């Protein structure tokens, strides 16, 4: 039995590795297919504003092409890329040279995680509770909430961001319009800084969590309605078991697919709020990726997509394994043992 489970794991791991390698190649290739040469931008920016002669720009151009290795053939660039990667080195940003890609990502990542993780967790908990509740209560409760869930979850999350931004930051000016904290402070662990960070946190957080709640609630509602019809629910009710306890039963049983959703959401956490960050000028990975793409900053784009890719692959891998554990039918099917 254990060997079969090991085989299941190995099999999954093998596919995981293949997906990883294909993704690596794409990750290297795709940014380079964007038209436009990054050195053009660097040199173009140095030239803009005047005062630097064309002769200087010519020399700088040649020197940067060489420094960034862009004069080498694709294959060689790929090998250099793999070699650096193996040493945990993501290279030097073109646009923000000589800053290293690791340090740029390291600076942006905490913002994204702190924005997304609570939004996903709270959205997931509240959404599932509300979904189970609407399914159970039915009546006016369901008639009022279900269409609202449908409405917010079908709205692209960036639309909600823009609406919130306009209403609460531009029109009523209750919340700041952008940034991660008030720029009159430096990041530290004082209450004044944390409260400033929280003030900047609300709008992007709400825009994410509301959509997430809606989506989760719809899924949970459907699952719960299905469960409500199950024999154990009827039986409990006929015994007069109290409502909260019944909801608890339904909740637990309807949860399995929702857990997959949670794992995948956490896996795509890094990329999940790209546009929200851009809309609110939030200093996370999304803002960094956006500016890097616009400047053809290959190393940074690659670094971020690599991170996203690994997170998604690992999450999928873990979900697969968890399923193998949780549900013996899946494991059996995968190992051909029916």
């Amino acid at each position, binding site marked *: 039995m254990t060997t079969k489970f090991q085989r299941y794991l190995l099999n999954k791991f093998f596919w995981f590795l293949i997906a990883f390698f294909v993704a690596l190649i794409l990750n290297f290739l795709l940014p380079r297919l964007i038209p436009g040469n990054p050195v053009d931008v660097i*040199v173009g920016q140095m030239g803009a504003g005047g005062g630097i002669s064309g002769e200087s720009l010519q020399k700088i*151009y040649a020197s940067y092409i060489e420094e960034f290795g862009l004069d080498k053939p694709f294959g060689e660039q790929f090998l250099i890329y793999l070699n650096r990667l193996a040493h945990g080195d993501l290279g030097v940003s073109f646009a923000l040279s000589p800053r290293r890609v690791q340090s740029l990502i390291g600076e*942006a990542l905490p913002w994204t995680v702190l924005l997304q993780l609570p939004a996903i967790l709270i959205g997931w908990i509240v959404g599932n509770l509300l979904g189970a509740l609407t399914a159970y209560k039915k009546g006016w409760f369901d008639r009022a909430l279900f269409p609202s869930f449908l409405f917010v979850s079908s709205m692209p999350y960036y639309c909600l961001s823009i609406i919130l931004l306009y209403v609460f930051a531009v029109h009523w000016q209750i919340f700041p319009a*952008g940034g991660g904290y008030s720029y*009159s402070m430096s990041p530290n662990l004082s209450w004044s800084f944390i409260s400033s960070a929280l003030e900047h946190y609300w709008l992007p957080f709400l825009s994410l969590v509301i959509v997430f709640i809606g989506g989760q609630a719809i899924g949970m509602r459907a699952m719960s309605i299905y469960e409500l019809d199950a024999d154990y629910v009827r039986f409990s009710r006929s015994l007069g078991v109290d409502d909260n306890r019944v909801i*608890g039963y339904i909740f637990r049983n309807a949860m399995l697919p929702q857990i997959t959703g949670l794992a995948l959401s956490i896996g795509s956490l890094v990329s999940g709020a790209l546009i929200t960050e851009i809309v609110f000028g939030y200093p996370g990975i999304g803002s960094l990726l956006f500016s890097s793409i616009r400047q053809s900053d290959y190393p940074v784009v690659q670094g971020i997509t690599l991170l996203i890719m690994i997170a998604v692959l690992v999450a999928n891998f873990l979900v697969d394994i968890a399923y193998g554990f949780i549900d013996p039918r899946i494991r059996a099917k995968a190992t051909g043992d029916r």
Partner: protein
Amino acid sequence: MNALRRFWLISVVALLVVALGIAPAMAQSELPREETLVIAGFQWGPPSTFNPLASNVTWPAGGRHQLVYENLFAFNLLNGGLDPVLGASLEYTDETTAVVTLQDGTHFQDGEVLDSEDVVFSYELARDHDDLSYSSLFDYITGVTALDDRTIQFDLNPDQLNIGFFENFLTRIRILPEHIWAERAAGDTPLSSVEEDVPVGSGPYTVMDFGIERVVMERDDNYWGMDVYGTPAPTYLLHPIFNSNDEANLAFQRGEVDVSQTFIPQIWRMAESGAPVHTWLNEEPYYLPGTIPFLHINATVPGLDNVDVRRALAHAINYPLIAATAMSNYSIPAQASLIIPSGGEEQYFDAEAVEAEGWEYNPDEARRILEEDAGATMGSDGIYVLPDGTRLGPYTAMATFGWTDWVAAIELVAQSAQEIGIDVTTEYPEQPVIISRRNNGDFDLLIWSLDQGGSSPAAPWGRFRDALDDRGVPDFGETAFWNWSRFSNAEVPDLLDAAAASTDPAEKAELFSQLDSIYRQNIPLIPLMYRPFEFYEFNETHWTGFPTADNPYASPLPEGSGFQMLYGITPVGQ
């Protein structure tokens, strides 16, 4: 225990742990607003490095800022001259020899003396470091030597004599401490790749703190220049890093930003709404012009290779409308000249010649030129066809995606052209794409200024050179760093060289006039509008006494010679 309840309990505990984990309170971290001048619009995107030799330098270590690193002189936008910074005086002892004397008592922020050797060291770096922005220095000078510890002699290259260019270097090359940089210069890492988080310069401010949201500078009360210039008013300079103009402009309107360099459409409306917002001028065009965005024309494209067609196009463009809409009235209508008709260049602007040889918005004249001079006939689709069968279009006019004023301008160019029967459509690629197509000549029509098109000691010479000089410019298909239209004219090089070497204003004006005439006869590019060298707005909620046209004690920018504004402003309420 109920699963649900356990779930809640765990969640709440987890949140509490997180909240307590980051809770330990520290001292108040906010900068005192009345001692802080908030500056915006110079730093976009996360800080990279304070290494002034890098390609992307974090404010204020780059550009013409004199806050951390200082230059010998500062360019004065108002009169085109040089103001002293580290250098006290500049004298020409003969045609090819310049001598700079340093101010007394100059030292770096770490206390080390700044003398002639540091100057020579900083300039000499250009000899064998191709990655520096001033790597072409030794095309223009043959040597730089320390006569004693306060005076430096520059030997100008008699074969490429260019006073304006030389003086431009004096305002751009930052004086670095040799005791720190000598080792770096000798190392293997290119100087532009050296990381620098704790810059040591000679200026009045040091870096206090920086991150993705902001850069903060603190006044150095040991600054050598306090004896000469006094004490800068703000204790702190804060530069918030905004992600977009909209965000920056909102903060500026609310008084959260004091001085800004961003494009604000219809700024007078901000003032009308009650915000204490001002610009250099109280009325149109509000700003000083400093550069010219041009329509570059690829004269190898059939149809556009005909000078009559180019002339017709020049008459077709609605310049007043571009100035009013695309430039939000911050420009007068563009005129038929490579010279900016005001500021330091006004002395060279020949209004009569522009009137006699030039063009202005006149669609009827444009059609007349096409029909009578070019002999074109209108096709059934409303587009003209030349006698040899060349249809005028479709041509593509490009502007960079997201550069709203340029996009609006190129849209109006296309409309104007369509109206008189030249088929022009628009396209908006991202910046990397447009730069590479521009350099390689892969365009029909394109809006861009010129790299040396801005106000500087070398203007307007640099603009003529970049627009008309074909020396060193490869053919279409290869990367060109100036003259993207690949214009060629046998008379131009001699005239350019003579203008570069001339020190006599009258002679210079005459030479520029001749170059301008050649330009107008051939029209390889068309001025579309005038743009401020940089935008300059200030909000007097917290600070007052900023320089304006009525009180021009400093240039309209906290950059170049505008650093003097730091000595002129006072906090509101004092």
